[in-house]
């Protein structure tokens, strides 16, 4: 992203690990610890704050953990740097300059490595396939790149700039040349390298922390000086530097020479045209039923167990390893609300929100609803702090697309998420879908034991015009009224309750009722904008019970609450809906804490959006979690006891 001329301002890390209490518990915990270590060591050194993330434990990830990372950047529209070789490059015989780490053989075949179903016997051949990133060098390069961008802006010259990703040097150079409609000649002898590798290794190795510049020869000396002298690359990192490795020409071929011989000479378009695969799809037969389970006798125990479960418990144990404050832009950090919020431009009042979501348990039941609910949830999270969902990006993690059922899952997921983006359209622009501006696909997440549950991970970026209006999720004042929007349907398929208490999946997966969803999201944004809400939290896994509890458990945890589940049955709901279903159904919704005196206006706004607001209870000075149904007490737990469970759950699962 730095290559676009943007400043990277935030990251988020959606992680999926296996079952920490299952048959592969030791391996799962070892992997989880290693991943978290890798993320904080990298991100903190890079100097970019972590502002969101999530961790989901699910047995389908026992052999295939998923580590997705989202990064957010900011750039002035008129200062965007492009990756293609600029129009004058051919006639001008522009330089191709390689900067960064000396090319070595690391990562050889890394992108293709992911495609081998991992078998233990194959560990020998897997060696050497992993790329070795270096956040320190990246940090230095970003700063040097900033100096370069400043130089070309001042000179008013267009350059091409690109980072080297999968496929290494050959991919990047040919892409830049082909995109500009030119040819390119490269001399591997001029490449700074770690050793005298064969030309094919040098061409496709995926050594990290390297960038490519296409620039006019007049700028050559000044560019090399930035990297080799001002930022002293050769002394900062052994072998790192900027080197002129080739030239753009007006031809249409990609030629590479090495030790006086031409080792590659092909039409440049050859290397960049992708291969179109025709894949077969076949609907996976999913045979799931709703379980026949008795109502629990002791809701206190059930609730404590859920609060302690690895997928509900506080994530504090992990995000305390992440620097959430670096750059000095953080307004709302992880743990305070459903989304993170930064104010990235000094002197401007706007904020950028970020949230990530995806529930693999839903994907297992219905890949389509797995995709749609991921988008809906990410948008709800952004709306819960008062930001408007403005754009979405994704990382679509699925199994082997060469297997028809896995490919079907992928297509269903994409249909689901694109439908959600269309029907939860951009606020104020009826019918205009929320754009998905970028994304990533990760296939082949399977092992001989099976494929991962469909996991379309969604990140939603939102904008709030005034950071002073953003709100967080912790309860604010005793006496404030609590409202629920979003009816409780019998939708416990894939729920935390079914999984943790009964170890079943169920069948009634929560769906997205698009009009209702959109109205709830818009209503919450408007209510926050008008200053009517003290706190808000969206309902997702764990249902209503987890949502309200979390509002009391979030720091400073000074207040309790009392709610009446009878009041959570809105218009048209069945009066006989079971208590556990009301508590733990994961149907979409929000719990809102109204500011005193603002309740009437809040109701007006909610009804204006055709919602049925349910006044379910009140914030109390007494530090207890109290849930009743009419006059019967269902649960009554001391807040500190609940907090002990909620704050220890994740640490215990990762010990």
């Amino acid at each position, binding site marked *: 992203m730095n290559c676009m001329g943007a400043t990277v301002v935030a990251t988020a890390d959606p992680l999926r690990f296996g079952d920490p209490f299952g048959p592969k518990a030791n391996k799962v915990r070892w992997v989880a610890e290693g991943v978290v270590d890798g993320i904080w060591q990298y991100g903190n050194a890079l100097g970019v704050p972590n502002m969101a993330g999530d961790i989901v434990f699910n047995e389908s990830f026992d052999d295939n953990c998923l580590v997705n990372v989202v990064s957010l950047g900011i750039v002035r529209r008129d200062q965007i740097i492009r990756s293609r070789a600029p129009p004058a490059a051919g006639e001008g015989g522009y330089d191709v300059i390689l900067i960064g780490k000396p090319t070595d053989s690391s990562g050889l075949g890394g992108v293709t490595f992911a495609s081998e179903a991992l078998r233990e016997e194959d560990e020998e051949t897997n060696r050497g396939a992993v790329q070795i990133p270096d956040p320190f060098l990246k*940090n230095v390069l970003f700063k040097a790149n900033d100096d370069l961008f400043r130089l070309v802006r001042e000179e008013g010259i267009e350059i091409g700039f690109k980072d080297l990703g999968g496929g290494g040097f050959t991919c990047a150079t040919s892409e830049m040349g082909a995109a500009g409609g030119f040819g390119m000649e490269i001399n591997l002898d001029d490449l700074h390298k770690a050793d005298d590798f064969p030309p094919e290794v040098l061409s496709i190795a995926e050594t990290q922390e390297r960038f490519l510049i296409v620039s006019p020869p007049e700028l050559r000396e000044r560019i090399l000086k930035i990297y080799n002298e001002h930022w002293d690359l050769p002394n900062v990192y052994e072998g790192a530097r900027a080197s002129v490795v080739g030239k753009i020409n007006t031809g249409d071929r990609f030629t590479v020479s090495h030790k006086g011989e031409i080792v590659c000479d092909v039409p440049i378009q050859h290397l960049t045209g992708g291969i179109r695969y025709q894949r077969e799809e076949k609907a996976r037969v999913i045979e799931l039923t709703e379980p026949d389970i008795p109502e629990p006798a002791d809701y206190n125990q059930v609730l404590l167990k859920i609060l302690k479960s690895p997928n509900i418990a506080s994530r504090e144990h992990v995000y305390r390893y992440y620097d959430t404050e670096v750059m*000095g832009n953080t307004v709302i950090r992880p743990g305070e609300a459903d989304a993170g919020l930064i104010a990235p431009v000094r002197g401007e009042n706007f904020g950028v929100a970020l949230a990530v979501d995806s529930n693999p348990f839903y994907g297992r039941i219905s890949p389509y609803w797995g995709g749609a609910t991921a988008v809906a949830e990410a948008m709800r999270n952004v709306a819960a702090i008062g930001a408007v969902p403005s754009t979405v990006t994704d990382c679509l993690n699925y199994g082997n697309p060469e297997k028809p059922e896995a490919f079907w899952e992928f297509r269903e997921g994409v249909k689901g998420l694109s439908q959600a983006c269309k029907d939860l359209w951009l606020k104020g622009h009826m019918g205009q879908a929320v754009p998905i501006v970028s994304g990533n696909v990760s296939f082949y997440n399977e092992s001989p034991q099976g494929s991962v549950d469909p996991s379309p991970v969604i990140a939603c970026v939102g904008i709030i015009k005034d950071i002073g209006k953003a709100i967080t999720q912790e309860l604010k004042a005793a006496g404030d009224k609590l409202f629920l929007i979003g009816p409780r349907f019998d939708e416990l398929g894939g729920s935390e309750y079914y999984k943790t208490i009964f170890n079943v999946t169920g069948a009634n997966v929560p769906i997205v009722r698009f009009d209702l969803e959109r109205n709830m999201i818009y209503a919450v944004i408007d209510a926050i904008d008008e200053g009517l809400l003290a706190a808000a939290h969206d309902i997702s896994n764990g249902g209503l019970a987890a949502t309200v509890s979390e509002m009391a458990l979030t720091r400073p945890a000074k207040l309790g609450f009392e709610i009446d589940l009878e009041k959570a049955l809105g218009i048209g709901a069945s009066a006989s809906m079971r208590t556990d279903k009301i508590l733990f159904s994961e149907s979409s919704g929000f719990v809102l804490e109204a500011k005193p005196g603002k309740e009437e206006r809040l109701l007006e706004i909610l009804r204006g959006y055709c919602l049925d607001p349910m006044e379910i209870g009140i914030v109390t000075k007494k530090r207890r979690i109290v849930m009743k149904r009419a006059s019967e007490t269902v649960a009554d737990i001391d807040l500190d006891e609940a907090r002990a469970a909620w704050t220890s759950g994740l640490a215990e699962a990762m010990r």
Partner: protein
Amino acid sequence: MKIAVMQFPGTNCEHETLVAVKAVGMDGEIFRWNRSEGELSGFDGFFIPGGFSYQDRIRAGVIASKEPVMQALLEEAAKGKPIVGICNGFQILVESGLLPGTGKIDMALAQNVMVSKGKIVRRGYYCDWVNLRHDAPSKRCSGSFIMEQGSLLKIPIAHGEGNLVTTTPKLIERLNEQEQVVFRYCDRNGRVINEFPVNVNGSTQSIAAICNPEGNVLGMMPHPERSFFAWQLPSFDPRKQRPDAAGPGRRIFESVKRYIEVSA
């Protein structure tokens, strides 16, 4: 009045530190470590910001401390100019011998260890908001010049090596006697409780910041530039509701400015 915000390879916090410097009305620029050392004498004060200079190779701050620019900074310190090292900056000052200012390397900032009720409950990198108590008198040190003794600041920390240790006998006693202990970790009522979570990294006597005997050089583990504006504060802080207000960290920068003014 011109401030240099030092920048080593791997430094992270220079931009927001410069924002803070300018926001209190000082002029400033980012000073890359390999610029000519002679240029340093043109500045009136220095900040060494946080980050991972040289990737904490060997140990945090040591490689940066051997750079020629640190020798020049030593000379500027001898002239009485204010130098504030934040987080990695503090580590660099310790490895350069500029702090505690006895003329040699007299302490280390070692790996965090979080002890509660006699048990180690956590180790390593930690990011959270903490409360600091100003344990030195006002005007004792450049970076806390305008602050009253006993006043409290809420500022975030984010580090893995902030545990102040020393093998020099009686050093800590001397620092206390000479009022060189500038900030200690405390709870929100100002009580120093020498165990986690109040002592957030196991540092000796909950020490979060110290100055040299002259008072012009301050090293602190917490990041005042991240608590400069009220809107940066955590959600449960009442001051956050007035986003245009100053944050607690601003006092560090105002202190440096005042210190330079009265020294002129």
